[in-house]
């Protein structure tokens, strides 16, 4: 007695797999199939050009960095001190526009760390906003754990990497 089933393979070339089930006291599973290979293409990501930087105004500002505790995004008193002079510099020169990028250490998942880096950058933005800096002068983004300052897997490295950079 033969029981023939056919199913169409999902793949591109409409391959067929025939399964013959021979039912007797012992059944043999008979199959035939063709290896599918759809091919692969490589893409080069075109990297955007860096926007031309105004080195004079950047020099006044001197790349401030503030640091955070694990899984935290609140500003401590040392950070507030750092940001105070940043706010002053921005008030002195209304042409300065800044980007705040938030970062995390490698512990925990990459996407959660991306969101955490964003919260850290947002904390800094909030400080600027509260101190009267117009929101359109501030761009905020996160790199999560993807751009560590230190590659070590110890608390000293982690502490350096949990940061928000202003530049």
């Amino acid at each position, binding site marked *: 007695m033969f029981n023939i089933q056919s199913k169409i393979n999902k793949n591109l070339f409409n391959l067929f797999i025939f399964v013959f089930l021979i039912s007797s006291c012992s059944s043999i599973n008979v199959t035939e*199939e063709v*290896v599918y290979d759809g091919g692969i293409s490589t893409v080069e990501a075109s990297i955007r050009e860096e926007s031309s930087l105004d080195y004079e105004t950047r020099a006044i500002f001197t790349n401030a960095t503030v640091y955070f505790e694990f899984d935290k995004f609140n500003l401590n008193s040392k950070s507030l001190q750092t940001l105070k002079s940043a706010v002053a510099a921005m008030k002195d020169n209304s042409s300065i526009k800044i980007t705040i990028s938030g970062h995390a250490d490698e512990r925990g998942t990459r996407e959660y760390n991306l969101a955490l880096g964003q919260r850290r950058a947002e904390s800094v933005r909030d400080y600027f906003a509260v101190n009267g800096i117009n929101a359109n002068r501030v761009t905020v983004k996160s790199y999560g754990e993807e751009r560590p300052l230190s590659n070590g897997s110890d608390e000293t490295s982690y502490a350096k990497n949990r940061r928000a950079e202003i530049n």
Partner: protein
Amino acid sequence: MKKYLLTLLLVAQPIFSELVLEITKGSDNPYSVALINFNGSNSAKYQVTSIVKNDLDRTGEFRILENNKLLSIPSSEEELNYSDFKLLGVDFIVMGSVAEEDISNIAATYKVFSVKTESQIRTSTVYGVPNKIRQLSHYISDGIYEEITGLQGVASTRLLYVTEERSKDRSLFKLIVADADGSNEQILLRSTEPIISPSWSPDSKQVAYVSFETGMAKVFTQYIATGKREIVLENQFQISSPSWSPNGKYLSLTMYQDGNAEIYILNLKNKNLTRLTNHYSIDTESSWSPNGSKVMFTSGRSGSPQLYEINLRKFNTVPKRVTFEGNYNAKGSYLPNGEGVIFVHRKNSSFQIALKYFNENFVRPLTNSKLDESPSISPNGNVIVYAISENGTGLLAGVTLSGARFRLPIQKGEVREPSWSGFLR
């Protein structure tokens, strides 16, 4: 004879240099399988036997006996003496042959015999091309696995992952697709900016990922075969954490429209967005239940990262908390049968991969090193591949639900964020 030896060396050499498979622990009660060296007139037979052995070993569910461990080596069914195999405690016998039909075609035939019933239980033929012996061998492995365990095999599936090669002043990031055993690596995307969160479309023809090439996180989709790619949403916001719905029509993602991470569902056809979460804490890492009715995500709303579930069929209900043990549970994904979730769990100061069944109220740790991340489960639900950190570099490891552990071969640079394809066979 001399020529024959030379061919053997040329063929065998790349296999052993590229594939270092380390099985650190297998199943406690494995099937015992006699894998008789494949016959055939060409050199492919050695490669096929070796790849099939590796594939079966990696499942952790077999004890493989090769020719040198057997009492007799039958070359056909007629020569098969079952008592020689019964003495060794063998459950199943596999024999086969490879034939080059012409320059562009190769065919492998294999048979599976049950020692218990003293009968043949399967005979199969796989057709392929000579320079894709590896894929052909994976098909054979999956056929054997399927016959013996009753489950679909995953040797013929693929892994997607990211590598980073650091040099002094910059990094090179690559998005790579490889066979499930880590061999046959091919580059999908090369960039000097970070690439994270790669994932497969349900038909495994496209991938989605986050690239920072525009200066901030943006989600792209890309066809594997053609390289055709697009940014899924053109706007000024950071977008990340893409996950395809099981029917392929939607992408759940995290968008930072309000500055904060919130989850949305994007209709890929008309680009309509539906907002799924609305909370001042972090909401990210969404993934779909197998039937598409629920979305799991990580939220900081309780004060620490925990997993939550939204039922898409009960709109506007409060997300249901899934994890309660410990203060860090993140990046959850459903088992293919929908009965549980795998995720990253923090225990003391270690991050481990853990499993929780929905009908149990405790967490089952699956790994035990310090910084385990990014678990992704095989389409048959049996194996979890994840990223580990060892001596300052990242590599990929695997664990089966039956407890077998393995490492995938070490690539150049740091390897991370593995994602398992669907079935391709």
